[in-house]
């Protein structure tokens, strides 16, 4: 296993130590520490302004900068990192909620995975019933590679999480109430779809070897962000073809259907587009992919109003990329443009 680490067991603690050393704007609370719970959490260094709704997210580690890298002004108030690819525990979420609730309540942004859903559900119960904190839970489920049906655990939460956190975070920063913050978060999620392709498997520190074997001339289509294989495997394709695969899957979703638009679909619709690397893919390849996405969207009558290209939602050291589109409108774009100051996303401040 070729990784910079000390021991597989200390990966989470050591990552958080480095994060804390790098970002004085963050406060890393380790398990059991003053105010700490059953696991570590990360908050802004400053306390939540009275009356501001607090945004908390969390999930297994291995997706950095998600979520800790998005803690800061205009985005998250706290992040609860679990062990690599393992949901954090309820006590950890509860402690984070108690640390950042200003009285205005807490919105949990939860990626739709059984573990995250169950643990956050328990945390919400504890926070509401025992700690008297008002909690709204927003599920993110944007991955079109998984059919949302009674036959699955539902679509996975992936790239849209960044968009939800940014936009809901901006609204919370403006002083909106918990209902509005949760509503806009749900709207971003409903408007967003993602699709990812892997060129290599990733290696969890605990396992020490790649999660699956992929021949030199094949790629996995429709992967998630936990190293699991995708829905299918096919021959390596060009960036152009990969972009087409992703856009075909995403734009087939009803939310991108433009026949119901005022213009009947003759005017372009606007999106926020993200091409995120999965951890082992260099930026230059992401630009190549984004260039294809931009060109093909243009040809399909979709305008990219804003974009992100880089590593935002990752899967350890997996070589691969995810395309996320969020159908945007003036409100969402305005919130997108609002100042944000986090380790991984910063503008306007």
């Amino acid at each position, binding site marked *: 296993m070729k990784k910079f680490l000390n021991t597989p067991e200390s990966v989470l603690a050591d990552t958080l130590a480095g994060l804390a050393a790098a970002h004085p704007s963050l406060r890393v609370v380790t398990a059991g520490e003053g105010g700490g719970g059953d696991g570590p959490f990360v908050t802004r260094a400053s306390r939540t302004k009275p009356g501001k709704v607090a945004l908390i997210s969390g999930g297994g580690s291995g997706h950095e900068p998600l979520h800790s890298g998005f803690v800061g002004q205009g985005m998250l108030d706290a992040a609860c990192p679990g062990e690599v690819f*393992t949901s954090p525990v309820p006590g950890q979420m509860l402690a984070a909620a108690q640390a950042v609730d200003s009285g205005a309540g807490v919105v949990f942004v939860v990626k739709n995975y*059984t573990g995250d859903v169950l643990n956050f559900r328990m945390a919400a119960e504890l926070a509401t019933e025992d700690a008297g904190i008002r909690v709204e839970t927003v599920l993110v489920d944007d991955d079109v590679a998984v059919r949302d049906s009674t036959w*699955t*655990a539902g679509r996975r939460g992936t790239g849209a999480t960044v968009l939800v956190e940014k936009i809901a975070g901006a609204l919370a920063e403006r002083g909106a109430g918990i209902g509005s913050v949760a509503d806009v978060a749900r709207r971003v999620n409903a408007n967003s779809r993602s699709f990812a392709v892997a060129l290599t498997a990733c290696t969890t520190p*605990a396992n020490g070897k790649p*999660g699956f074997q992929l021949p030199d001339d094949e790629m996995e289509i429709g992967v998630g962000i936990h190293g699991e*294989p995708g*829905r299918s495997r096919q021959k390596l394709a060009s960036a152009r073809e990969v972009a087409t695969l992703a856009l075909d899957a995403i734009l087939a979703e009803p939310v991108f259907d433009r026949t119901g638009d005022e213009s009947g679909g003759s005017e372009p619709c606007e999106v926020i587009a993200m091409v995120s690397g999965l951890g082992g893919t260099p930026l230059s390849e992401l630009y190549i992919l984004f260039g294809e996405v931009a060109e093909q969207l243009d040809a399909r009558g979709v305008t990219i109003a804003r974009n992100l290209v880089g590593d935002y939602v990752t899967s350890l050291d997996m070589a691969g990329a995810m395309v996320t589109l969020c159908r945007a409108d003036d409100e969402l774009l305005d919130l997108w443009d609002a100042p944000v100051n986090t380790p991984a996303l910063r503008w306007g401040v």
Partner: protein
Amino acid sequence: MLDLARCRAWIEAVATAVAERKDELTELDAAIGDADHGANLHRGFTAVQAALGGDFAPETVGQALVKVGMTLISSVGGASGPLYGSAFRAMGKQLATPEADADQFALALRSGLDAVRALGAAAAGDKTMVDALGPAVTAFDDAVGKGLGFADAARAAAQAAEDGAKATVPLQARKGRASYLGERSIGHQDPGATSTALIFTALADVFR
């Protein structure tokens, strides 16, 4: 009769078996999940061992099992943490006496299964721990109904759990991470069902 000593021995045995079979559980999870089930349970039962040691002096089997459940909830994470945690917690809540006889334990197991179902919403055949837990609970019930003792009931439950776990191989997953694989989940044994079988086998072994 499951008294406190046996209860502790059971949980110890589970912890030992998890430690020994950690890599096997993780391998199974690597095939259709995210390669952490062994590590998750190992972390959990290590915490449980610590929690049951030291000052903790439960007066009833129920208190001990509630402690096991709470500890799993607070240390495992993932899907299996809340599920196993709730199961043990629900079982413990049923058992208010210092020791549990087979009838009491059958009821407790039923509560455990109900808790898993309520939380995870998995049905039989969804390729989850329910496919081992369900048959085990039924087998224990049936054995008790036939007038068999704790030891025999536990052995029957262990066998049913083993069989249930094996029977997950040809199933297509509909819950948990494995469901994302669709048809590609077929042909692999569910890690959670496997660990459930391990838990029942440990119980049976305590009565050997």
